[in-house]
């Protein structure tokens, strides 16, 4: 034990040594980097490290915008429209990045190859758009795993009733079909629900997407024509419809966004909850959550094709094409995503995107069984995680798809009708934009 601590301290020291060695003293003296960084409490702890970078390089960082990603996304689009893109460093997100292929520059020639090699390879693949490495991921990797109330699986009466009804043992679900059975079984509205899903805006679209993939389908064909109006797509949408019809989800679920889900599970009224890693601390905090101490975490269940759901995304930093001092900007991006930065950031809960930091984080959590369980579940899910389809029309087509999904869930349309309408709408969008 002692030896391990000592060696990890050594590794930390080595990491620090490397970081300072890479930044020659005063290399960028006189340079000012304008940065647009994501704001919000959980993201800002990292920015305290900017002062260290300034000290090491002699450059100055001027944060000219701090907003959440949805607002930042609008701002980038407006910037492209106004031609005001001479600022240098911007926060980026893997789900938004394909929309602005020309805004950000290729980081490959600007960042040492060994630094890039330290990232989880799948993340680098997802950050590469049209052959350009558009961003370096920070320790904000997101994929959803299954949170559940442990006590539900410790009650022999429940276990027996479940077995009688469904013919198999009650255990934490491994497939989405089991998940549906159990959600319907646990539900006792209006005070307790089997599960919930984010039914609003791009959220339902993302959930649908991952379930389509888990059922063996895909959203788009290779030419970007819609492919979700398939057996796998219908099965996925039917899953949402069934839960809603059975009353296993809160009736307002089609208007829920992520914050509603987190607060709902923390209120103790939800049995099973597919949710993001950022909530793990919140759920087990007695001051914030009623289910603290009773939270179990398991890898995301699998769809009918035996594939785990794993819609994933991550935050990163990019350098603009219009930046006058790209080397300095890339050095800042590299610094904010290096091992020490990721260690600092992931200490608060978010998942890292560097292989070495994963090992470090797991080691740090050894003494904490809950944290270990969380990390194991998310690591397992992350193994097969996949990003959004790499098309600039992902968000636009999503805005056409989600109202149709909601219409099917609420019973305004049949599953077949809804998917047909969504597919037609996406098809004409692609045609209008000359994709095919």
């Amino acid at each position, binding site marked *: 034990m002692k030896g391990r601590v000592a060696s990890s301290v050594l590794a930390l020291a080595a990491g620090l040594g490397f970081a300072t060695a890479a930044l020659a003293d005063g290399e960028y003296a006189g340079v000012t980097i304008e940065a647009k960084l994501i704001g919000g409490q959980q993201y800002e702890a990292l920015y305290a490290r900017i002062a260290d970078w300034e000290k090491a390089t002699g450059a100055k960082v001027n944060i000219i915008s701090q907003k959440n990603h949805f607002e930042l*996304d*609008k701002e980038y*689009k*407006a910037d*492209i*429209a106004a*031609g005001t893109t001479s600022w240098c460093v911007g926060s980026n997100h893997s789900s938004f990045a394909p*929309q*602005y292929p020309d*805004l950000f520059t290729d980081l490959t020639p600007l960042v040492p190859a060994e630094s890039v090699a330290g990232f989880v390879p799948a993340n680098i693949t997802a950050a590469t758009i049209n052959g350009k490495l558009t961003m370096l991921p920070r320790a904000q990797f997101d994929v959803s795993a299954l949170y559940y109330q442990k006590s539900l699986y410790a009650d022999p009466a429940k276990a027996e009733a479940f077995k009688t009804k469904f013919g198999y043992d009650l255990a934490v679900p491994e497939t989405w079909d089991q998940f549906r059975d159990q959600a319907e079984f646990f539900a006792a*509205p*209006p005070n307790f*629900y089997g599960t919930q899903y984010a*039914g*609003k*805006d791009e959220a339902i679209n993302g959930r649908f997407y991952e379930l389509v993939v888990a059922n063996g389908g895909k959203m788009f064909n290779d030419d970007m024509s819609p492919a979700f109006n398939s057996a796998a797509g219908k099965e996925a949408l039917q899953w949402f419809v069934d839960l809603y019809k059975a009353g296993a989800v*809160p*009736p*307002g*679920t*089609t*208007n829920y966004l992520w914050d*509603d889900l987190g*607060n*709902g599970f923390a*209120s103790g*009224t939800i049995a099973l909850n597919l949710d993001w890693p950022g909530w793990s601390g919140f759920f087990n905090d007695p001051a914030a959550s009623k289910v603290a101490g009773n939270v179990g975490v398991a890898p995301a269940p699998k769809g009918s094709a035996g594939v785990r759901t794993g819609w994933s995304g991550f935050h990163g930093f990019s350098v603009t094409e219009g930046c006058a001092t790209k080397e300095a900007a890339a050095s800042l991006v590299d610094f904010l995503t290096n091992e020490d930065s990721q260690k600092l950031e992931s200490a608060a809960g978010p998942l890292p995107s560097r292989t070495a930091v994963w090992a470090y984080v797991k080691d740090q959590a050894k003494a904490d069984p809950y944290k270990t369980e969380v990390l194991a579940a998310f690591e397992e899910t992350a193994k097969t995680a996949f990003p959004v389809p790499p098309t*600039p029309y992902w*968000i*636009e087509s999503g*805005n056409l798809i*989600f*109202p*149709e999904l*909601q*219409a099917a*869930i*609420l019973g*305004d349309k049949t599953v077949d009708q809804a998917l047909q309408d969504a597919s037609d709408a996406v098809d004409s969008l692609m045609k209008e934009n000359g994709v095919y």
Partner: protein
Amino acid sequence: MFRAKLPPWLVLLLPAFIIILAVVAIPLILSLYSSFTPYHLTRPDTLWKWTGSFNYIKAASDANFWKAFGRTVLLLTIALNTEMLLGLGLALMVSKVTRGQRALRTAMMFPMMFSPILVGFQFKFIFNDNVGLVNNALQSLGLTDVAIPWLVDGNLAMFAIIFAEVWTSTSVFAILILAGLFAIPQDPLEAAKVDGCTPWQSFRFVTLPFLMPFIYIAMAIRSLDVARAYDIVQVMTNGGPARRTELLWTLIGRTGYVDARMGYANAMGYIAILMSIGFTIYFFLKLQTARRELGMGEM
């Protein structure tokens, strides 16, 4: 001097015109132009491609657009009339209070202190079906044992949005009408009393006609301002679920900024602007008539 040549009314109005020209008229010309192009925010070169009335035809032949249009007119009509009636009632009740009126009036204006974006979040939580204030209260009082999906059911969701909108804006009507009530000359009212009019009659034939200009001013101001409800709706439902609460503003906002199809969004925006202007002119004409009846001068 040049200045001396300008008529005094123009000198007085010039600052207003210059500011509005700079902040409203010039941007509007820009967006009018872009509504004839396939302008896409992330592809600036699309601004130079002229497609004529393509966007307008596309909007006009889109059923979702017209549904949103109809819903917006419905929301405007219901919300404005409810606000007016409630505001009138509130103003009458408050004007009758003799003690503590100043505090009461401040309390009456309380909702106006709330930013529309905050109102959106507030009512999103109040109407949450699982842990929201309304359902909790109904369930605790034993009035219902189901979770009412306030923000999902087609009618209830519109109701919840209108409730939030009415909650924020009734005060505007109340305070303007109250100001009107205080400005009513006492002589005609006393004369009516002497003539043996019932309170209802003196309200109907003396107070109300005098209040009408104030009511129309409030109506017109609100009909201009009501687009601010965008913030509220966007946070509460963002037009969903399944487009059940889709309004012109949420549709335009999403098309323009999230989808980045600014040309198309601006075309829809222009149709929305024409509608707002229609409402404004309607109330303006009403205001003129009311003023003429009271002999308060012509326009």
